[in-house]
Every structure is written in structure tokens, then in C-alpha cells.
């Protein structure tokens, strides 16, 4: 044990000469864990919403038509369907910000029975008159309207106690502009269709969901969760690549130390156990940091994400994060495994190191040449996938583009890390500021890739 501590001390004190690499290693693991764990949280929210929306669907709603890939359907879709003889009602549905109220926009003319069916004091004519006078109307139960206080003051609020609590209904055009969703709807309610209409939906992106096709709905939701999982995985990969590079460099400096330890007669196993022990400490520290970061990031993004998810699944998500000790442990475990994986090459290299040997310079040179040709290939690949992702509807091209961009940034990263590590000590601070600044960019990236409301 005493020997282990002695060797561990030597191994750890190597970082004294490689402070830059240490910072990058810790940051790399922390960032990777942050991204992974925050996306995991988001994912859990999604799964919750998904379950609820499927339940909602199963509780016998009217059949609805939604888009396979987008969280909304468009005016064009509406026109196409109508021209093909489908009778549908457009609906817009979203949670009202900072409240548990769902706001629903419907076509008053087509769908008025929802609000005026058995209302005595508000006859239909009366109601049309108010519309015609340019008033924006909003219907809700007494309780719901009370909750609103003076929000949405440009609407004329009409009490209607037949509506369930927590629901507001307005005319579709006014709700569209309220939610910044001009020309977009959440879904179409399917009423029926003329006999001679084609029985497949004409814009191919649309899908009719009724009791028989609830499974398909599940499938769509899964593809979305897969998408963000994949994004989480890619970002984890980037973080771990940072670790891979910085540890690789830090370990190159360790060659000498490990060689000398071996010449002195320190057992190989003891050296490896110390290296692993050191990694364990680093992973524990940075992993905790990262999980905490993930929690903060998820909390920051949650309102937006909840919005997105709610619209996507027509089911409001609660604003609470589900956090548990197990979740924290799993994040740590993932951080640990990632670190081990990222460092395994460096450790194996040290393990193979014989105490008396020359460095093979030629090998290093040929590796450099390889890197250059691989980078060239990657750049071509990225351009191609970018071209496809904008010029065609092949969805996978988007994903490939994202993937190869990330791989390329991985290829460029070592340069930055090297630059940083060779900087004089006093510049560290400003560089760190830069790194934290770029975390803002990361946040925007997450925004960008979560489907827009």
C-alpha cells in the first residue's frame, strides 16, 4: 500500500509539468459528461411526454394527421388535403409559457361547436359579430381565466365553464400570431373524406393517426429520441476526444518517468494500478463536475425543451427535472468508462515501454502523413454531406454532416490544445475564459438541434 501511494504520488506529480493538459483532461471529461447527462435528462423528459401523449391518443381522441418528421403541419399541407377531398380541421396547441395552461387555436367557423354548442348567453351570431369587430376572443373556464390575471390583455376573454380547467381556446389565426407560428398548425383533426378522394395521404410527409396506428406514433417519437441520443453520443465523443488528445500528450511526457520507474524495478502492475488509480480520481472529480454541469444545463434549457416536446407530442411536460442518485451514479460511470477508453491507448503505450530503448522517429512521421490524408478525405466527405443535406431531403445527410463536422473538429482540436499547452502560464486565465465562452456556443448548438417550436 505504501509503495502504491509512493508510485501514485510520482505519477500524479507528472501533472505539475503538464498543467495545461490536466486542465484539458478535466474540462474534456466534464464537458463530455455535461453534454451527455443533460441530453439524458432531456431524453427522459421526452420519454415521459411521449408516454403521456400516447396515453392521450389511446383515450379516444379524434383521429389526427401529423407530420412524420416535423413538429408541425403547414398551410400547404392543409390545402393539399382539402383539394384531395379530405375534411379536416386545423388545430394549434401549445403550453402557455410559465404556466400549466394549454392554449388551443381552432378554426372558429368550422369548429365552433367546441365553444358555443350549448351556450345560451353567447349565441353564435353574437360571437361572430364580436369577431367581425376585430376583437381577438379567448374562451376559458372561470378558474383558468382567473389564473391568467392580466396576461394576454389584447384578447377579449369569454367565460365558458364547459371547457376543462387549464385550457384556453382562441381563433387559430390569433393563436398562430401569439405563438409565432404563422402558417403552421400542430395537427389536423380528421373529420371525414369524400368518397372519391385517394385513400393515401397525398403529401408523403403526413401520417394519419387513429386507434389502429398508435404504434406508428410511437415509432416517430422513438426516431426523435434516437436523434437526440445520437447527438448526445456525438458530443460525448468530442469531449472524450479532447481527453484522448490531452492525455496522449501528457503521457508522452510521462514516458521518461515510467521508464525510470521500470529501470529502478517498480513492478509493472504497480505502475498500471497507479495510472488507473490516478485516472479514477480524475474521472471522479471531472465526472461529478460534469454531472452537475449537465444538471445546470438541462435546467437552463428545460423551458425551451419542454415547449418543443409539448408541441411535438401535444402533451404538456411538467417543468420538474427528475433527478436521482442513480442518475448521478450512471453519469459518473459513463464518465469513468469514457475516460478509461480515451486513455487506454496512452496507458497501453506506457505499459509496453521497455526501460531501455530508442524512440522510433520514422513511425511518428508516417503517422503524420496518414493524418493529413485522412483529414483531406474527411473534408471532402463533409462538403459532400453538406451539399446533400441542403439540396435533397435525405435526412441522414444532415446527420452525416453533423457527424463529420464533429470528427473534423476533433482532428483540428489537438492543434489548439498544443497551442494552449505551450502558452506561458499567465495566459492560461484568458484562455480559460475563452473556453468557458465557447460553452455558450455549445448551448446555442443544443438549441439549434432541438426541433424548433
Amino acid at each position: 500500500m505504501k509503495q502504491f501511494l509512493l508510485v501514485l504520488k510520482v505519477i500524479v506529480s507528472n501533472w505539475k509539468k503538464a498543467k495545461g493538459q490536466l486542465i484539458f483532461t478535466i474540462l474534456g471529461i466534464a464537458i463530455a459528461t455535461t453534454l451527455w447527462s443533460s441530453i439524458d435528462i432531456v431524453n427522459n423528459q421526452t420519454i415521459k411526454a411521449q408516454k403521456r401523449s400516447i396515453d392521450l391518443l389511446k383515450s379516444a381522441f379524434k383521429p389526427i394527421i401529423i407530420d412524420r418528421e416535423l413538429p408541425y403541419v403547414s398551410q400547404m399541407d392543409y390545402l393539399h388535403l382539402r383539394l384531395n377531398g379530405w375534411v379536416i380541421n386545423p388545430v394549434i396547441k401549445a403550453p402557455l409559457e410559465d404556466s400549466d395552461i394549454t392554449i388551443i387555436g381552432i378554426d372558429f367557423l368550422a369548429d365552433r361547436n367546441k365553444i358555443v354548442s350549448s351556450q345560451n348567453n353567447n349565441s353564435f351570431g353574437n360571437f361572430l359579430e364580436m369577431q367581425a369587430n376585430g376583437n381577438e376572443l379567448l374562451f376559458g373556464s372561470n378558474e383558468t381565466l382567473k389564473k391568467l390575471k392580466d396576461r394576454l390583455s389584447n384578447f377579449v376573454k369569454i367565460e365558458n365553464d364547459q371547457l376543462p380547467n387549464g385550457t384556453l381556446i382562441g381563433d387559430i389565426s390569433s393563436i398562430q400570431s401569439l405563438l409565432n407560428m404563422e402558417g403552421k398548425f400542430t395537427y389536423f383533426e380528421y373529420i371525414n373524406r369524400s368518397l372519391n378522394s385517394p385513400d393515401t395521404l397525398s403529401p408523403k410527409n403526413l401520417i394519419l393517426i387513429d386507434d389502429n396506428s398508435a404504434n406508428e406514433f410511437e415509432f416517430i417519437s422513438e426516431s426523435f429520441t434516437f436523434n437526440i441520443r445520437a447527438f448526445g453520443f456525438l458530443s460525448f465523443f468530442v469531449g472524450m476526444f479532447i481527453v484522448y488528445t490531452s492525455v496522449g500528450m501528457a503521457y508522452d511526457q510521462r514516458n521518461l518517468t515510467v521508464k525510470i520507474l521500470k529501470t529502478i524495478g517498480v513492478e509493472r502492475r504497480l505502475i498500471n494500478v497507479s495510472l488507473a488509480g490516478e485516472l479514477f480520481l480524475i474521472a471522479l472529480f471531472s465526472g461529478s463536475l460534469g454531472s452537475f454541469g449537465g444538471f445546470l444545463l438541462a435546467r437552463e434549457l428545460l423551458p425551451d425543451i419542454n415547449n418543443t416536446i409539448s408541441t411535438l407530442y401535444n402533451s404538456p411536460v411538467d417543468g420538474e427535472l427528475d433527478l436521482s442518485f442513480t442518475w448521478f451514479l450512471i453519469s459518473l460511470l459513463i464518465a469513468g468508462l469514457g475516460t478509461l477508453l480515451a486513455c487506454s491507448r496512452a496507458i497501453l503505450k506506457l505499459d509496453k515501454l521497455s526501460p531501455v530503448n530508442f524512440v522510433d522517429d520514422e513511425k511518428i512521421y508516417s503517422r503524420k502523413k496518414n493524418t493529413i490524408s485522412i483529414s483531406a478525405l474527411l473534408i471532402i466527405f463533409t462538403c459532400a454531406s453538406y451539399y446533400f443535406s441542403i439540396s435533397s431531403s435525405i435526412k441522414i445527410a444532415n446527420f452525416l454532416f453533423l457527424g463529420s463536422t464533429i470528427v473534423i473538429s476533433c482532428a483540428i482540436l489537438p492543434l489548439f490544445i498544443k497551442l494552449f499547452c505551450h502558452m506561458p502560464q499567465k495566459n492560461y486565465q484568458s484562455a480559460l475564459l475563452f473556453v468557458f465562452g465557447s460553452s455558450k456556443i455549445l448551448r446555442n448548438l443544443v438549441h439549434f438541434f432541438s426541433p424548433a417550436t
Partner: protein
Amino acid sequence: MHEHIVKIKNVSKVFVTKSGSLELFTNVNIEFAPSTSYALIGESGVGKSTLLHIASGLEKPSSGEVYFGKQNFWGLKTSRQSLLRLNETAIIFQQYNLIPCLNVKENIEFQARINRKYNRKYIKEIIEDLRLTRLLEEWPESLSGGEQQRVAIARALAAKPKILFADEPTGSLDEKNSELVLEMLLNINKKYNTSLVVITHSLSIASKLEQCMELKSRKVLDR
């Protein structure tokens, strides 16, 4: 009975490189007896350091055996090999091989602490004798060549080996320091019965040791 600490038997070494194979020596036999001092001389590049690495168990011979006592070194498990090297040998390297992330004091104490022969008083004496007291907190990289060499010597001495291998231990030292170091080496050789193997280019140093061998034309000859 075995009268040696380390014995090398029919040892040959060939390096295979891109430009062909380089045969350093063939069928070398040497027995290093307890409390005896040896000098190994020979031209530069002839393979003295390599022979020393083989004798200390650091490098595997191309053929032949190395015995630590009765044990055939290369037939042992690697953990056992490490243990033997740690406990029975110490090497003063031609390139010093100080651990860069430890300061002078930690470097000197390292092997002794790992092999559990750490003795504060003894180490303090060594440090004073080698006039390193002033440098204890320094990093190896900030020392001159001669200072680094003295630290390497101190580390080897502190480990109290049964056999001490020294690869040109006075190569970077002035005459006065060279004499001092040689005196110390001979002193522990007598006082602690430590066998001493010294590679040197200086015939005057070689003459102060009990046996002198020369590596020449792939053979080791007694002089």
C-alpha cells in the same frame, strides 16, 4: 556453493536494425562476486552500457543466461524480476535518469523508500558527502550535468543494493569530485560488502578497483 551475486553465462547480444544486424559481443562469461569491485573498460560504442544493462537484468541477452544467485533471471515471472532488481541492484546511469517530476530530495529517497531500506541518517550522510544539501529542493532539470550525476549516485547509494552498477559515474565530474565519488563507492564497497561494477574510460580509476575487464572485439578480457 554459489560465490556470485550475479553471473552472466554465454551471453551474446545482437541488435537488429534497419541497416543490418549489429553484433556487440558473443559468449561472454562473468561472475560478479560479493564485496568485490570491478572495472569495465573499452572503446566508445563497443557495448559496455549494453553489457551492464544485461548484467543488471534491464535488458534481455540475445542468447545465454543471467543468474541472480541461483535464479535464472529470464526464467522468472516479471514481477519477481522487478523485485530482484529493486532489492538487489542499483544503477547509476550514464544519462542519470532522474525522475523529472520529483525534486532532488525525493529522487534520492525514491528507490530506498520503495524497497523499504530507507534510513534517514544514512541518506543524510550521503547527501552531505556528495555536497547536495543546498540542492535538495531543486528540480533535476535546473541542475548542471555534474550535479545531476551526483544526485544519481546518491539515489543508488541510498538504495543499499547488493550490487551497484555504475555507468561512467564520474563522466561529468571534475577531478576533485571524481576522486570523492570513487572514494565513496569504494567505501560502501568495503563497509556494506556491496559489489561494485564501474564502467570507466579512466585507467587511473580502473586501477583502484580490484578487477579490470576490457570489452574488445566482442569478447571480455581480464587485464
